[in-house]
């Protein structure tokens, strides 16, 4: 009999303890991020798809079209093309295509890039990726860079 009453009282008390916890949460500030209106800052080492790094002076690509990244990529997702032009030292980048559908974000392309002091490609912070076709993920990075400069 006394066990029976003890269980009822301790059980009822535990219910009130539970209610106390939730009401405290109720009055505490909201912790969720209101996503489309707010976004979290991405960490510096976040790996989005790769993108071309612009020359701080001219705004054009830093890439020297050496093709190291193309060779280093284990998934064959990079196509780099360039051409010689009158009066310009080295090659000029004409095409840099990234097939992001196959990219594993391994980072070998970024690592292999010989351009110093800043590498000519880097990981972007872009995580808002949504599309309706596979083709949307074959990125023309040169165009992206030009679009950014505009």
């Amino acid at each position: 009999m006394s066990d029976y009453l003890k269980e009822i009282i301790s059980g009822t008390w535990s219910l009130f303890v539970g209610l106390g916890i939730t009401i405290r949460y109720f009055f505490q500030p909201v912790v969720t991020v209101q996503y489309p209106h707010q976004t979290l800052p991405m960490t510096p080492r976040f790996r989005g798809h790769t993108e071309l790094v612009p020359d701080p002076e001219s705004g054009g690509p830093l890439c020297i079209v050496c093709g190291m990244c193309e060779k280093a990529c284990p998934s064959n997702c990079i196509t780099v093309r360039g051409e010689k032009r009158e009066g310009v030292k080295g090659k000029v980048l004409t095409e840099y295509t990234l097939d992001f559908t196959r990219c594993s974000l391994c980072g070998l392309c970024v690592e292999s890039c010989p351009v110093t002091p800043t590498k000519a490609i880097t990981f972007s912070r872009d995580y808002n990726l949504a599309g309706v076709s596979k083709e949307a993920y074959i990125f023309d990075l040169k165009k992206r860079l030009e679009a950014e400069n505009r």
Partner: protein
Amino acid sequence: MHVDPEILRLVAFLVGVIAFAALNAAYLVWLERKEAAHIQRRIGPKEVGPFGLLQPLVDGIKLMTKQLIVPAGVDPVLFKIAPILVMVPAIMSFVAIPFSDTLVARNLDLGLLVIFAFASVNVLGLLLGAWGSRNKYAVISAARVVSQNVAYEIPMLVTVVTLVMISGTMNLSEIVGLQMGGFWHWNILNLAASPLMPVAFLIFFVCMLAETNRAPFDMAEAESELVAGAFTEYSGMGFGVFFMGEYANIVIGASVATILFLGGWDCPFGLFPGVHWFLIKMYFLIFTVIWIRWTFPRTTFYGLLNLSWKILIPISFVNLILTSAMLKVF
């Protein structure tokens, strides 16, 4: 043409009551979502209108535009009548509830009885809807609802009988009238009548949760086990009406608890009694009902029946006997 003013009054009250019930059903959903969100430290609905206040409207429109599917093989009559059987008694009960000493549609001498009579029809509605659905989940749910309601109606009514013994009347206005003059006169603290009165309030409240099929006693709708229980086959507004009926029942339950235990429209400090105090107490109870839902997980079916038969019923009988002894002695 001569129209009896009493009839006009009744019509006005009926329209008011239906509007009140519908408005409550809509905005309690909003309250529920907001409260749930803040307990989980989210914001909840906020995009439609300021503070998401137009959300219920949009939800309603969405439900109404959905196709009303009557699946092949259901009992066409029972299936269609069940949502109405849940909604109508809930609205009817409002007629007997006194919101203040003047604001009552019908001051019935047996108001308490009327409300409990209508409350039992609600179960019938769920049972018929589930049975008419010919869905095994719905039938399991119906069996649970009935045994749950039978189990919880006993302690609830025993507690109510205790209260009626103290008050000596079933007229809800008179029951409130006896509790006027400050919170120490309220039945919940009427320790002179029975030292177990606060416990009686707890029993009544728990039974109310179970009768309205609210968590942690939402056996009828246990989504993790029974899909949507009795509502599995319902779509669009068929489901919407069930939903509104449930919320209307919560409002009724909270109102009855306010009237029986918390002094109705009486002010806790004896100042300015009025309908606002009734609403404050009622909405506080509803807030608590929602708060409980977002705090405790669903009990098991056996846990639920054990709680009723092994704890609530014995204690409510002890309270009944104690009260009658106290009434006889003092």
